[in-house]
């Protein structure tokens, strides 16, 4: 190694070390970017496609489902069950059963696309773990009522 290279290396190396210290010092003063997971949770992106969920019409506050059964027929896995009954004094059918067997759902979203009334939407749930299969047989009407 030449004499010139020796001191140049020392200077360049020393300078880059100081720059490195500066980088970590600045990072130390900047706000924290992680969250304490079980206590704090990040907001899920609106594009997240969880299992399906019935939704309310924002104007009337009621579920716009007309029990046409399009979603159940469109589902390639056959995991949606829709039943309804004709009630006295009401136009059309009323929804009585809307069951989703999430163990077989492939999250393709065909049901959401085919629904003529826009009554189905993707949920934002991602913390779904369970001990039995039955925990994934969702009663979507009850879930809708629980959400209020």
């Amino acid at each position, binding site marked *: 190694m030449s004499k010139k290279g*020796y001191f140049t290396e020392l200077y360049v190396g020393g300078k880059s*070390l100081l720059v490195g210290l500066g980088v*970590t010092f600045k*990072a*130390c003063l900047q706000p*924290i*970017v*992680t969250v*304490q997971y079980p206590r704090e949770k990040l907001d899920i992106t609106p594009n997240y496609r969880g299992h399906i969920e019935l939704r309310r019409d924002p104007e009337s506050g009621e579920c716009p489902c007309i029990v046409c059964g399009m979603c159940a027929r469109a589902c390639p896995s056959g995991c949606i069950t829709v039943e309804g009954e004709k009630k006295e004094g009401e136009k059309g059918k009323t929804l009585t059963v809307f069951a989703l067997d999430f163990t077989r759902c492939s999250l393709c979203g065909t049901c959401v696309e085919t629904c003529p009334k826009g009554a189905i939407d993707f949920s934002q749930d991602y913390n779904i773990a369970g001990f039995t299969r039955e925990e994934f047989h969702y009663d979507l009407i009850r879930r809708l009522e629980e959400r209020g």
Partner: protein
Amino acid sequence: MMESLMPELIRMVVAAVLVVAFVFLNAMIMGYLERKLSAHIQRRPGLMEVGPHGILQLLIDGLKLIGKQLVIPEKSDHFLFRLAPVLSFAPVVLPFIVIPFSRKLVIRDLDVGLIFILAISSLNVLTILVAGWSSNNKYSLFGAVRSVAQNISYEIPMLLSLLAVVLMTGTFSLQGIVAAQGKIWFFLIQPIAFITYIIAGVAETNRAPFDLPEAESELTAGYHTEYSGMGFSLFMLAEYANMFIVCSIATTLFLGGWRGIPLPFGDYSGIIWFFLKVYGLMVFLVWIRWTYPRTRFDQLMNFCWKYLIPFALVNVLVTAVLVKVL
């Protein structure tokens, strides 16, 4: 006869208890600082669970380690395997005897204080070798071999940089060296020696960027791979106490020891200044650790033999000439 011995005996017992207690406390403080600072450098919150901002986490960790079993590998050298952690703990306690914490608070101001510290702390290498060898594990042995090579080569620039200060003061007594820094602290007169000492000190304590003996990605944990429970924690205590000793030597020799702007605490202000300086330096070492990546072994040796030793040698020579002439 007995009566004249009693005060001395009490003094020894009190000193021993204080030093050992301090070694444990220091490991807790440094463990917390290290984890918290590393977290903030990586923009994480770090310890948050046990106590406010996790300050009790290290206490819990310590209790956990005490409660754990010391697993001894079947084909290891059982006697040496048990002996090594104890051996590593003993030499880090002894240097506290001569460290001047303030004008009056020093256990024994030996005339050869500096030599005493250096002699005792170089024993640490031996214990690492004992630990690595007795574990009968390739990672442990590699870690130990690396540690020995590294420590032996970095001892030279370390001694040379300290020698420059000793040439100026003409004494090995640490109180004497502090007394010589009444007007100006030596890091201003001896910047090269100071920088050399800090770099060599980082290497001596086996910390990043010179943490090859315990390089996680290559050697799992190096020489203490096989240790669990209290065996492991004695090594950790020794590492942090070693860090404290390296920083307190740097403080004593280069940063004016317990000297500082007078605080309104009388004789106690010296202690406060001393600890402020030492912990400032230790935080700096933590900062270095979480900034730089690990060096390669050839880089490590090149840096020592091609840069540190020539610079330290020239520095000693110039200092010697100047001391003679002036």
